[in-house]
């Protein structure tokens, strides 16, 4: 088995554990390259069918191409798509720095989703290599009902034995891509022929390396206009993947604060 086969097999194992032991189950779909891969893996794990709702936390601030991708492939892949409108920025904690406050809308949308549905498992396509606090995540990460992440008190997780029994009223974040890297995502998307949002490819010398809402995400300077070129670019870049995600770096701990209070 090569590297991509190994990654795929492990992710499928995780998705099947989630489906067996963490129901009712839903998946968050940001419509970015990572959660698109999760959907693909789910179709592999469950032989063509995605047997749980796929939820978009919508701030109405996504780029047009993101909505176009969503509408086309939700239909084509026969997804049970649920769109949740996130609360407005005016309702967010005013102490947060401005970009972070904008991003917090998604945590609030997720909290509303959880309050309205008794989901036991929420699948999220985050990766350890994206961001340092995500590097400390568990594959099955127990959360309070509020979504808060108790990073000081995480359960042990070894030999692929995941925490699936949780107190009433709490939920699990399930992270099937935790062990993948950015390049893995591209190589796998290429191998599997997963449709790519054109925003990732260079137009007028710029492309999006990481997709987020248009008010808090900036494209990077790049001439990469296909996957091979993206991979070649990533081979030599010394810039972090989320550099264009403006809320991450407003303060030393802005993203950590987002995450401990429930951000993905």
């Amino acid at each position, binding site marked *: 088995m*090569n*590297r*991509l*086969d*190994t990654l*795929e*097999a492990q992710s*499928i*194992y995780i998705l*099947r*554990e989630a489906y*067996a032991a963490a129901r009712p189950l839903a998946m968050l779909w940001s419509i970015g390259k990572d959660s698109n891969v999760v959907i693909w893996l789910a*179709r*592999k*794990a469950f*032989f*063509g*069918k995605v*047997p749980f709702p796929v939820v978009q936390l919508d701030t109405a601030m996504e780029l047009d191409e993101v909505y176009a991708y969503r509408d086309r492939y939700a239909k084509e892949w026969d997804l049970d798509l649920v769109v949740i409108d996130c609360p407005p920025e005016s309702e967010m904690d005013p102490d947060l720095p401005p970009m972070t406050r904008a991003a917090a809308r998604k945590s609030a949308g997720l909290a509303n989703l959880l309050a309205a549905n008794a989901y036991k498992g929420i699948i999220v396509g985050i990766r*350890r*290599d*994206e*961001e*340092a*606090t995500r*590097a*400390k995540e*568990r594959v099955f990460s127990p959360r309070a009902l509020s979504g808060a992440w108790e*990073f*000081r008190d*995480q*359960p*042990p997780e*070894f*030999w692929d*034995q995941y*925490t699936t*029994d*949780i*107190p009433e009223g709490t939920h699990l974040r399930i992270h099937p891509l935790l062990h993948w*890297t*950015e*390049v893995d995502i591209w190589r796998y998307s290429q191998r*599997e022929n997963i449709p790519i949002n054109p925003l990732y490819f260079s137009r007028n010398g710029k492309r999006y390396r990481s997709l987020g809402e248009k008010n808090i995400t900036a494209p990077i300077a790049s001439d990469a206009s296909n996957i091979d070129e993206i*991979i070649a670019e*990533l081979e*030599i*870049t*010394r*810039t*972090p*993947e*989320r*550099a264009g995600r403006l809320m*991450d*770096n407003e*303060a*030393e*701990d802005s993203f*950590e604060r987002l995450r401990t209070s429930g951000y993905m």
Partner: protein
Amino acid sequence: MANDAPAANSALSVGSTAGDLMRVVIVGHVDHGKSTLVGRLFHDTGQLPDGKLEAIQEMCRRRGMPFEWAFLMDSLKAERDQGVTIDTSQIWFRHNQRHYVIIDAPGHREFIRNMVTGASNADAALLLIDADQGVRRQSRHHSYLLQLLGVREVAVAVNKMDLVDYDEKRFRQIEAEYRSYLEGIGVRARRVIPISAREGDNVANASTNMSWYTGPTVLETLAEFERPESSVDRPLRLPLQDVYKFDDRRILAGRIESGRLKVGDELVFSPSNRTARVASIEAWNTPDAPKAAEAGQSVGITLDEQIFVERGEVASHTEDAPIETDVFHLRLFWLADAPLQVGRSYGMKIGPRRMNATVERIDRVIDVDALSDHKAEKVARDEIADAVVRTNQLVAIDEHEELPRTGRAILYDRHLTLAGGIISMGGYPDQREQVTVRSTNVTAVDHGVDAARRAARNRHKPGVLWFTGLSGAGKSTLAMALERRLFDEGYQVYVLDGDNVRTGLNANLGFSPEDRAENIRRVGEVAALLADAGLIVITAFISPYRSDRDRARTAAGESFREIFIKADVETCESRDPKGLYKRARAGEIRDFTGISAPYEEPVTPELVVDTSARDVESCLDELVAYVKSNFNNPA
């Protein structure tokens, strides 16, 4: 830029899929410099993301402290403020065609569960020791845990050599001490390297301060680590995660933990022991349906027959199926605050299967410092112990030595994971043969004479008096004497005795745990037949395993009475009528019950006859009275 991860530069590190992947965990006592080593490794190999160095300088300036490499890994603000790693972190880097995931595991005692989490996914480990402080308890504890977790590739870095003036003598002393400790627990350290992570000695570049050391650097040692052996050529194990019925296919899903399978193979599912053939291997988005699959793959299969199987069953080939048992040894590491207690029942997971397990006894708690052990009734947090556990159902397992992935278990209680452990049988028999029914298309017919008529003619009811106890407890003596007394009083009675049966019915059986179990199974069935014929049957067998006696009870039904012929080992050994204890003590007999093999005392016997303090006659009187009150027809 403050919070970008070192990990975020995966792009430049794991750029290609060529080359192999090695997951290396860095462990050791708190403050021995794990995070610093990782920071230094990244810096010296030119793999820090842009701006990271400046960001760390800024964080340190703001805290009014000298430059701290560890901030690269310690991404949580609380970690930086307290100068400790709270949770396992992972970062990626590449060097010379090899890709590494570096797992930084915390060294605090209270963070053992995080260390275990990080280390269990590792292929290799780098153990860090502080040259100034030397080998500490955590160093020993961590290396013991690595061994239990199954990490076989290990190297040691003796850090902070700058603090001991790069003194060779100090290094050699630590090297000798730690090597000898590791050998004591069966770990071979590939290298022991003197380094200074802070100063960069022997991390990526050879040190100019220690000309006396000519071995490889840390970076060169990482390159030497060998990947764990593939389990493809081992017996097939496919634990089922689920059975799907999304369309007209009934798909059994799971990951192959070892071995390989192909379409047409006959599979046996344990512990239900049902068999069927692989009709197809299902896959989505592949041009052709696969014909074979192997270890590591997550697969789906359909069967030629619609047998009932569910999550937790283990598919294998029939010829090398897993062990089936409800009792085994577990070497465990206890992670919970409340201690493990003898007699308590816990949730247990072996792969996807769940069951309850009762801790029957704790054989020893291992002192990781002295490598000695002591008896105990409890196992406290962070202790390692050997226990015997009994499950509430038959489970399919493997010896950890043989197949590690299906030879380990975790204990849990509601939402808490309490312990991990590795499995061995240590004298307990594989019960697979006992529970396998090979005859099919069999229909029982009714006899021409029913039980009531037989009881009326015999003037007593049938019964099985199952004597169990140690060799020398008095089973045969009492059985033969009781047979004579009952016969004289007009009972239809017969004794099945160990040695007598082994010369005929069971002449083809030896003394392995499995053969002993089969011996008892046959005796149980014969006793049930004789009781069915109206007799009172007395059996005189050590029958040390509770599961075997339970099966004999099931065979005989309501006429079964478990009678514990009780005498302690010392008493039995002093009697030693057949000279067996003497030979066992001399090592001439292996697996001798009470000496080198377990005897499981009855939990709720119908009668206990204590022979250590009484003479034969008074024991006999008690037995005769018991028979009269239990088996005489109503007046």
